C-alpha cells in the first residue's frame, strides 16, 4: 500500500474543507437550529412525546443522519468529480497508486468531513433539547459506518456523473425522499399498517432506527437488522467500486 499517497490525497482534500471552515461549521449549526425551530417547536408543541422521548430529542438522530448522509454523498462525489471536470485526474491515473488507495484517500476525507458536521449538529442539539446517549459505542459505530458507506456511494456517483446536473440527481431524486420518508421526523409506528409495511423497503429506515436506538433504546426495527442493513449497503458499494476498479469504467479509456 502506498500510504504516503493516501495521506497526500487525504490532506489535499481536507485542505479544501479547512479553507471554508467557517462555512462548514456555520451551515450545519444554522440548518439544525432551523429544524428545531420549525419541527421541534412548531410540530413538537402538538406532539408532546414519542414513545416516552420528547419530540425535539426524538428527531435529533434523524437530523444528524439527514446531514451526514447528504454531506457524505456530496463531499465524496464532488471530491472525485472535480478532478475529472478539471482534468487533474491525469495525475491520479499516472501516479503509482491503485484504485483502492484512491478510494481510501477520497472516501476517508469525505467521511471525516461528514463526521465533523454530524458532531457539530449533535453539539448544537444539546442547546435545544435534553439528549441522552444510552449506547455511545453503538452510536459512534453507526455514525462512522454511515459516513463511510454514503461516502462510498458518493464516490460512485462522482465517477458516474458526466456533468454537474447528474451529480445532484441521485441525492435529490432518491436519497432525500428516502431520508424524509425514513422516519427522520416520525416513528414508523405512527403510520397506518400498509405504510408501515411499505416503509420497511426503505433502507434508510434501518439506518435511522438503529441510530435512534443507540440514543434512546427505541427502534422501529430490531437493531441487528439495522446493523446488517448498513453492512450490506457498505458491501454493495464496495463491490461496485471493485467493479469500477477492474474495468476502469468512466475513468480510463
Amino acid at each position, binding site marked *: 500500500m502506498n500510504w*504516503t499517497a493516501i495521506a497526500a490525497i487525504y490532506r489535499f482534500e481536507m485542505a479544501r474543507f479547512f479553507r471554508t471552515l467557517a462555512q462548514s461549521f456555520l451551515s450545519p449549526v444554522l440548518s439544525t437550529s432551523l429544524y428545531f425551530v420549525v419541527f421541534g417547536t412548531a410540530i413538537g408543541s402538538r406532539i408532546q412525546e414519542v414513545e416516552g422521548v420528547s419530540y425535539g430529542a426524538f428527531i435529533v438522530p434523524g437530523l444528524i443522519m439527514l446531514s451526514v448522509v447528504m454531506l457524505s454523498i456530496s463531499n465524496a462525489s464532488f471530491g472525485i468529480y472535480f478532478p475529472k471536470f478539471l482534468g487533474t485526474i*491525469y495525475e491520479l491515473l499516472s501516479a503509482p497508486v491503485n484504485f483502492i488507495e484512491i478510494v481510501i484517500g477520497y472516501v476517508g476525507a469525505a467521511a471525516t468531513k461528514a463526521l465533523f458536521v454530524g458532531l457539530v449538529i449533535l453539539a448544537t442539539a444539546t442547546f435545544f433539547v435534553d439528549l441522552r446517549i444510552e449506547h455511545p459505542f453503538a452510536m459512534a459505530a453507526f455514525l462512522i459506518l454511515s459516513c463511510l458507506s454514503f461516502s462510498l456511494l458518493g464516490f460512485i456517483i462522482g465517477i458516474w456523473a458526466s456533468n454537474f446536473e447528474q451529480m445532484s440527481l441521485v441525492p435529490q431524486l432518491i436519497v432525500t425522499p428516502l431520508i424524509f420518508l425514513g422516519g427522520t421526523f416520525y416513528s414508523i409506528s405512527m403510520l397506518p399498517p400498509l405504510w408501515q409495511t411499505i416503509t420497511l423497503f426503505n433502507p434508510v429506515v434501518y439506518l435511522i432506527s438503529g441510530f435512534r436506538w443507540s440514543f434512546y433504546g427505541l427502534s422501529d426495527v430490531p437493531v441487528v437488522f439495522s446493523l446488517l442493513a448498513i453492512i450490506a449497503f457498505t458491501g454493495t458499494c464496495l463491490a461496485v467500486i471493485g467493479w469500477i476498479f477492474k474495468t476502469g469504467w468512466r475513468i480510463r479509456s
Partner: protein
Amino acid sequence: MTTILSIRDLRKSYADGFEALKGVSLDIEEGEILALLGPNGAGKTTLITTICGITTPTSGAVTVGGHDIQSDYRAARRMIGLVPQEIALEPFEKVWNTVRLSRGLFGLGKDNARIEDILRKLSLWEKRKNAIKELSGGMKRRVLIAKALAHEPRVLFLDEPTAGVDVELRKDMWEIVAELKRDGVTIILTTHYIEEAEAIADRVGVIDKGELLLVQDKDTLMAQMGKKQIEVMLTEPIARIPDSLAIHNLTLNGAGDSLIYTYDTHADRTGITSLLNDVSQAGLFLRDVQTRQSSLEEIFVNLVSGEAA
C-alpha cells in the same frame, strides 16, 4: 547508452474501431531528448498517455527502466513525470500545496528543500503562496512542470509544452529542458513545430495516423527537412534549360516559363547568388522570383517515400 524506455508493438483501438496506435515500437536511450513530431490526431498524446497509465493499451508491451508498465506499474510510474498538454490545475489551491500533493502521490516523503529547489528553478518561488487562479497561463504551465518534477522522475514526458505560448516562454521552456537534460533526465516531448524539435531534440520521431514513420538523429533529419525551392519565373518561355545553367541542376516547368532550383538552407552557400547571376548571363529576363519550403505534411510524405526507396 542504456535503454530506459522500450516500447514494443504498442496498439490502442477504441470501441468504435478507431486505431489510435498501430503497433508502435521504439527504444529511448537514457539521457536523450526525443521529439515526437506529428500533425494533430497523429497519436502523439495517445502514445504518451498509454505509457503513463492513463490509457489502457489494447496490446503490446512497454517497460520503463526494465519495469513493465502494467505488471510492475508502481516501479514504472515512479520513474515517469508527465506534463500534460492541457492546463489542468485546481484553481483555488496554492502552488506549494499542489506540488507537495504530486510528490506525495508518488510515494515520496516530505522534502521541502527539494520542492523549494524545483520552484526556484522554475521561477515559481515567489508565487508559492498564490492560488493557481491568480497565475498567468505561462506560470500555470510552469506549475505543471513543477508537479511533474516533484517526485524526481528519470523520464519526463512533455506533451506539447509550447502549444499556444508566447516566444519568450517558449525560449524559457527550452532552457528548462536543456537544464533537465544536464541533470540526466530523459525527455520525450511532442510538438508540431519543426523548429522546436530542431532547437532541443537529440533525435526526432515522426508519427502519423498511429504509426511511427521513422526515428532519426536530428541532424540527419534536419538536413532533409532543410530543403527549400526557389522558382525563377521568366518573361518568355524557353524550350530547354541553357547549358550554362546545367551546374545548378534546375528543372523546367511544363509551360517552360519557370525554372525550379532546390537548395539546402543549412548549407554554407545556398548558390542563389550565382544562380541569379548565371540566369542573367544566359540572357533570360525575370518576371518574378518565389521561394517555397515543404510543409510538414509534404516532409512526412517525402520521408516515407525516401524510406521506402
